[in-house]
């Protein structure tokens, strides 16, 4: 009984922690005013917020009935895919010139995103946000 009680409290605490970070991420999404800084907010919800939720789900499943480790997979896939989507949004921002431009590189090297092939320059111009 007492173990069950401790587990219940642990579930509640982790749910609270998860909700806190997801609320902070939503506040950040509304409050921040630059596309690049706004990108920082969802990466927070993706890592600690969802991580705490899934931990709560796992503790709950182990105390009530059969244990479940599915959640580890969800966490793993989120941790692998979140940086990729963030990277693509950052690239879109750089293309649209929505943010301050990245610093120039030494010795004629260019950023991969800014290195647009000659035949695509026109598309790049029309996509530019003015």
């Amino acid at each position, binding site marked *: 009984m007492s173990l069950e009680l401790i587990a219940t409290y642990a579930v509640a605490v982790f749910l609270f922690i998860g909700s806190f970070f997801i609320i902070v991420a939503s506040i950040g999404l509304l409050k921040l005013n630059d596309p690049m*800084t706004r990108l920082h907010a969802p*990466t927070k919800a993706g890592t600690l917020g969802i991580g705490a939720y899934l931990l709560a789900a796992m503790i709950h499943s182990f105390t009530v009935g059969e244990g479940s480790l*599915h959640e580890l997979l969800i966490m793993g896939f989120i*941790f692998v895919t979140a*940086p990729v989507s963030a990277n693509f949004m*950052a690239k879109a921002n750089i293309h649209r010139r929505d943010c301050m431009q990245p610093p120039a590189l030494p010795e004629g090297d260019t950023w*991969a995103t800014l290195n647009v092939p000659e035949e695509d320059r026109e598309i790049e111009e029309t996509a530019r946000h003015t």
Partner: protein
Amino acid sequence: MMRPIRWLLPHPFLTILLAVVWILLQNKLSAGMVVFGLILGIVIPILTARWWTDRPQGIRPLRMLTYVLLVLWDIIVANVQVAWIILTKSNDSMKPAWVVIPLDLKEPEAISILAGTITLTPGTVSADLSDCGRYLLVHALDADDPDAVRDEIKDRYERRLKEIFL
């Protein structure tokens, strides 16, 4: 003796990973599922072997484990810091900055792990890679001193990743 083993298990780590993912997908442990997971883990690496010709020769598993634990801890600490910044600082007093990180790492696998780590630790998002893969572009949410951010990433993550990949 080694030849047949290398032929059957060209990528032992991928074999274990596939078996574990299969068992986790089933969400219950039974002998039949373990055997089927191992069959998948042996067949898929053999079928896909031709697509990863230049993979790193090996990693140090123990250092990889400490690296993962370090990153998990950093995610928690940095999340709290960023939550504090979002809740207390006004937009005008924030100092977002681009940070350029010159890379010593050569392997694409190591660079992707570094970029993923940078994005997952809040406050920094890796945005772009230079054409030749020698520089990494990182956006910092609130950096008074971009050089300090660069030095910390190089010292904390890149140095460890260099030790992990042989």
